[in-house]
C-alpha cells in the first residue's frame, strides 16, 4: 500500500506563513542570560565581603565616584541607538558619526578606569592581594571592564570596515546584536556602580 495521507492543513498554517523567532535574537538573549548569571556571582561576592577586610585601605578612604565615566558609558547606550536608527534609514554618514561617538565614549570610560586603577595601585597601595576589598573590587570592576573592552573591539571592527567601504547596511541584524550586547554592558555598569560606589562605600 502506498502512503496516501490526505491531511487537511493545520489551522495555524492556514492563518499565515509559519514564523519562528530569529535565531540570532534568541542566541544573544540567552548569551546575555548566562552573562547575567556570571555577574550575579561576582556582585553577590562583592556584597558578602563588604566590610570584611581585615586591613585597609577601605573603600571609603580611596574610592571616588566616577561620575564622568558613568555618564559617558550610559550615554553611549543612547548614541548607539541613534547609530542604529541612522543605519536603518541607510544614512551612512550619520551612522559613522554616532558609531564613532559610541566608541569614543566607551574608550573614555576605559581610560577613566585605567587612571582610577593606576591611582589606587600606586598612590593608595591597593592591589588585588591587599585585602578582601581589593580582591573583590578589582575582580568585579575588571570583569565589567573586560566586557567593555570586548564590546569596544567589536565597535572598532565595525567602524574600520565601514570606513573602508564595507556595505555595513547589509549587516543591520548583526549591528543590532552588538548594540544589545552594549546595552547589557551598560546595564551591568548601573549595578556595579550601585554596589561598588554607593552601597560599598
Amino acid at each position, binding site marked *: 500500500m*502506498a*502512503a*496516501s*495521507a*490526505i*491531511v487537511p*492543513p*493545520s489551522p*495555524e*498554517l492556514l492563518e499565515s506563513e*509559519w514564523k*519562528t*523567532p*530569529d*535565531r*540570532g535574537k*534568541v*542566541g544573544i538573549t*540567552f*548569551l546575555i*542570560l*548566562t*552573562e547575567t*548569571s*556570571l555577574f*550575579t*556571582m*561576582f556582585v553577590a*561576592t562583592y556584597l*558578602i*565581603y563588604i566590610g*570584611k*577586610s*581585615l586591613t585597609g585601605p577601605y573603600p571609603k578612604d580611596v574610592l571616588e565616584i566616577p561620575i564622568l565615566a558613568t555618564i559617558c558609558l550610559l550615554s553611549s547606550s543612547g548614541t548607539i541607538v541613534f547609530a542604529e536608527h541612522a543605519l536603518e534609514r541607510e544614512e551612512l554618514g550619520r551612522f559613522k558619526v554616532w558609531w564613532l561617538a559610541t566608541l569614543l565614549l566607551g574608550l573614555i570610560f576605559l581610560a577613566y578606569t585605567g587612571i582610577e586603577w593606576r591611582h589606587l595601585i600606586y598612590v593608595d597601595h591597593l592591589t*588585588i*592581594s591587599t*585585602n*578582601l576589598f*581589593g*580582591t*573583590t573590587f*578589582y*575582580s568585579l570592576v575588571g*570583569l565589567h571592564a573586560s566586557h567593555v573592552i570586548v564590546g569596544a573591539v567589536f565597535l572598532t571592527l565595525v567602524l574600520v570596515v565601514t570606513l573602508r567601504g564595507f556595505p555595513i547596511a547589509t549587516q543591520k541584524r548583526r549591528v543590532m546584536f552588538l548594540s544589545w550586547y552594549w546595552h547589557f554592558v551598560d546595564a551591568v555598569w548601573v549595578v556595579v556602580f550601585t554596589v561598588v560606589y554607593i552601597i560599598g562605600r
Partner: protein
Amino acid sequence: MASIDYPLERPEAAPREFSFSESLYKWVATVDHKRLGLMYMVSALVFLVIAGIMASVMRLQLAVPNNHLVGPATFNRLFTMHGTTMVFLVGMPIVAGMANYLVPLMIGARDMAFPRLNAFGFWIFLFGGVLLYYSYLGGSGLSGAGSAPDVGWFAYAPLTEKAFSHGASTDFWALGVLVSGFGSIASAINVIATCVSLRCPGMTLARMPVFVWVMLVDAWLVLVVLPPLSAAQIMLLLDRFLGAHFFDTQFGGSAVLWQHMFWIFGHPEVYILIFPAFGTLSEVIPIFARKPIFGRPAMVGAVVAIGFISLGVWAHHMFAIGMTSWSNTFFAAASMLVGVPTGIKIFNWTATMYGGKIRFAVSMMFCCGFLLQFLVAGLTGIMLAIAPFDWQLHDSYFVVAHFHFTLIGGLVFGVFAGIYYWFPKVTGKMLSETLGKWHFWLFCIGFNLTFIPLHFAGMLGMPRRIYTYAAGRGWESWNTIATIGVFFQIAGIACFAWNVIQSVRSGKAAGDDPWDAWTLEWATTSPPPEYNFEKLPVVRSSRPLWDLKHPQDPDWKYD
C-alpha cells in the same frame, strides 16, 4: 494536499570512497550537527571507559581493609579525576551529543541554529578535557609529586588554595574544567536557539517531542548554573595566580563561599546530567508500549518544575557546615519538593506502560531498569534531604551509593536505552538483541551488587574518599561484595563494546524506521543524509508519523 504514490524500491546507493586525509578533514571541519553529535558521544564513551577504569582501581583498593594496591596520593587523584571526568567529560558531552544529534532531526530542521559555534563548542570541550588530563604530565598535587589534581571533584576551598595545594595540578583542574565549560555554554545556547527558531512548520511548542522539551530546559539550566562554577573557578585562579583572597581564610575570606557557588552549580548539574535520560525514556517507553506518553503536559511541566526548584536546593549539600535551623529547614523542604515532580514523571512513565503492549527490546529493558533504580535513588534522595538524617549520611558511602544510583542506575541506564534505540538511526545497523540482553543483565546485576552494599557501609559509618580503612569496623564484607560487582559491570560493558563493533562491521540493516516509531527522526534514512530532510516536514500533532500511518485515526484530531 494531494496523495502521492511513491515507488517502493530504492536504487542502491553507490558508495563513494574517501582518502584518509579527506575523511579526516571532513570530520575536523564539519559543522554538521550529526557528525558533531557523534563526536560528542564517542569522546564521552572514551572518557567513560577511562573513568570506569579509575573507578575499578579504586574498588580494588577498597576491596579489603589495609590494602596497599595504591597509595593515598594516587587514590586521591583517582577519585578526583574519576568524578571530574564523569561529570564534565562524560555527562556534559552526553547531554550535548544527544541534543546535537537528535534535536534538529526531531523538530524537522536541517542543522543547529549556529553550526560553527556548535563545532567550536565540541572542540573546546575536547581540548579542555585534554588540558585536564595533561595535568598527569604537567601538574603536581597536594603532596608535591608530579601528577593530576587530588582535591576532589568539588575541590573545596581552602584545600585548593596555594598554601595547601602546591604545584599546578589544581590550576589544571580549574582551567581544564573552565575551558570545557565554554563548550557547554556554546552548545546550550545552540540548543535553545534551535528549539525556538528552527522548528519545522506546525511544530508548535505544544507538539514538540518531550525529549526536545527536556533538552530545552536542560540547556536553559546549563546557561543559568554553569556561570556560577566558572565564576568560582575564576576566583580560585585569581587567588592562586594573583594572590587574591576570595577563599583565603587568613585574610578574612570565607571557606563556605566556594561551597555555595559550587553547589549552586553542582546540584542543578545533577539534573542537567539526568535530563537526557528523562528525555530518552519519554521517547522510548511510548514506542515499546505502543501508547502515547501519558500526560504530556504534566511531563513537560514536571521537567520545568524540576529545573526551577533545583535552583533553590543547593545548600542541602551543606547541612553539616553549621547553618541556622531555619536555613536547614528551608533547604530540606525545597529538596523534598523536588520529589513531587520527579514522582509525577515516574508515575506517568508507568502509566504510559499501563494498558500497553510492552515489547521488551533491550532499549525497553534498560528503561525498566531505570525506573526501578531511579526510584531507589529518588527515595534515598528524600532521606538525604531530611537534614537531621543527612547529618549522619552526609559524606558517607551512603551518599556515594545514592548518587551512583542516580547517575548510573539513572543516567547511564537511560543513555544505554537511548543508544540501543537510536543506534539504528545513527549507523543504519541494528544492534544484536542477544548480546544486548547479556549486556543488560550483567550490567544490571553488577551495578546493584556494587552499589546496594555501599548504602550499608555508609550507614555503618564509612566516610567517603578514604583510601583505606582498618579491619573490624564492619565495612569489609560490604566492600568486598561491591568490588565483585564491578567485574560483572566490566563484563556487561565488554558485551556492549563487542556488540557495537559487530554491528558496525556486519550488523543487520536497520531500515528507516525499525521500531515503528512516531517522531520525525524516523521519517528520514538511517543514517540521515547531511541535510536531514529533502523537504522540511509539516506536522500537525506531537506524533507526526502516527498521523501518516493512521490517516483514518490521526492524532491531530485530538491534540
